């Protein structure tokens, strides 16, 4: 297997301990769980998405485990501004605040709470199951550009997480780039549904949800590959990464780093596990791998 030589990693203006980040929405509700993941080998962590108002999220069921992935509809539960205190224990750590809003002004407001307290922002323009937020905005290039600009003007690294639930993801990627994004994160979950035949109704309280895990890995690789051809800013690959070889594949498609989420379901120490397989003293430099599948 291809392996990487260990060394300092800077992606989209953020200094990371390695190429592996915890994805938003996974064990990101509390400062102590983020700390636990950092100490178990993650190169950086992305928080639960924080918005302008406190939200309790959707009624359950909020998640079901499938054969090759997870289907969830949490509904962006978050304590809003109170979360600033939650991550006070993580000062100077590679913490990215995932934020959402319904318009550029709300994005700017939420970002202002975290200035000086996080290494960067990840804009959630991609949650597929929250009315008026996430993908509701992230499918409109003009809104993506405006929301990105509202945060990037702070000068703090601003990553934009994209939804795959569009016809042409590169149009959205380019909009983020025009808005001053420091990096693109691709992809958020794929809009999906399962129905319980026994109960004769959709298995999630919100009916629709987002699919993650191995099932979406090929979609994520395709999106990263397309974005690498269309955009010049770095790409962080996300979606179904479970093994070190998946990391290499994402990087060959064009990712400068990867985010890992659903794999935590199988192994809470997945970062340690992948790190041990990924890095070798005699491995290739990341530059030799990133985008190397393109002609």
């Amino acid at each position, binding site marked *: 297997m291809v392996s990487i030589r260990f060394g300092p990693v800077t992606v989209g203006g953020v200094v990371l301990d390695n190429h592996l980040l915890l994805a938003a*929405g*996974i*064990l*990101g*509700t*509390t*400062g*102590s*769980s*983020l*700390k*636990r*993941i950092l100490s178990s080998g993650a190169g950086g962590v992305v928080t*639960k998405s924080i918005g302008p108002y*406190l*939200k*309790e*999220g959707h*009624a*359950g*069921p*909020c*998640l*079901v*485990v*499938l*054969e090759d992935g*997870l289907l*969830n509809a*949490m509904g962006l*539960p*978050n*304590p*809003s501004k*109170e*979360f600033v205190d*939650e991550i006070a224990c993580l000062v100077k750590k590679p913490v990215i605040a995932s934020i959402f809003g319904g318009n550029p002004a709300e994005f700017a407001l939420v970002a202002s709470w975290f200035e000086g307290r996080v290494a960067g922002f990840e804009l959630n323009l991609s949650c597929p199951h929250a009315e008026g937020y996430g993908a509701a905005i992230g499918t409109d290039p003009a809104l993506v550009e405006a929301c990105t600009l509202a945060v990037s003007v702070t000068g703090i690294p601003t990553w934009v997480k994209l939804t795959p639930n569009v016809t042409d993801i590169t149009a959205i990627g380019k909009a983020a780039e025009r808005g001053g994004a420091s990096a693109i994160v691709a992809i958020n979950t794929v809009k999906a549904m*399962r129905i*319980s035949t*026994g*109960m004769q*109704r959709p*298995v999630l*309280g919100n009916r629709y949800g987002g699919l993650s895990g191995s099932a979406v890995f090929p979609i994520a690789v395709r999106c990263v590959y397309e974005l690498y051809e269309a955009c010049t800013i770095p790409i962080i690959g996300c979606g179904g990464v479970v093994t070190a070889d998946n990391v290499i594949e994402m990087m060959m498609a064009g990712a400068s780093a990867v985010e890992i*989420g*659903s794999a*935590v*379901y199988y192994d*809470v120490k997945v970062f340690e596990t992948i790190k041990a397989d990924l890095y070798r003293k005699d491995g290739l430099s990341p530059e030799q791998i990133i985008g190397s599948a393109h002609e």
Partner: protein
Amino acid sequence: MSDGLSLPVSILRVKKETSLIRTFVFDRSFPFSPGQFVMVWIPGVDEIPMALSSENTITVQKAGDATAAMFALDPGEKLGIRGPFGNGFTKGEKVLGIAGGVGAAPLLPLARADCVMTLLLGARTENELLFVDQLDECTDVLIATDDGTLGMKGYVPALMDDLNLGAYDRIAVCGPEVMMRAVLTKVEEKGIAHKTEFSLHRYMKCGVGVCGSCCIDPSGLRVCRDGPVFSGDLLLKSEFGHYMRDASGSKKNL
């Protein structure tokens, strides 16, 4: 691995245990270890974690919208069940059980596994005591009620003062968190926190260790996956007995 979709169960019977507590009997059994829980889907309402009181029953106290909706269900109606999840109590040979209120639910199957020598059972008043007869059949039950209508007048941790705690190899505790914290203080004083286990209740969304809504401070341990049963020494310097988080992740003092 296979799909973890909810399994539909029909309610065969609903048994009124106390004014606020009912047992729902299912037409399907779930092999489990005492202390494990299931995620119970009340269609159109919500999904909530509930300890199994036997392999085909849950015993529920009316507390919020979801449990109120359950209380309105009749035999023949359906629920969805995911699980069992979590770790359950560590097996022991001479176990002391300590239960308050509906906390007797996960301790009944432990007592039925024939390893509980003594069980301390508490409630506010006599007719709110849960599973007195069932527990009496399989273990030695000592009772405390807040108003003294049955057993000792006072809180259940006070019953520990008359026992030789050294005679037990494990202590299993489930009940209101303030009561469990009082037990933790007592076992810490006696240097036996490490052999005492507490079953925690926290707000949960996913139930499988992914979303993080039930993580406890400062360890970041997940109540749904690393617990819900935790050793006392892990809880000594923690949020246990002080605060918990609600659906939004906001801290709420006990």
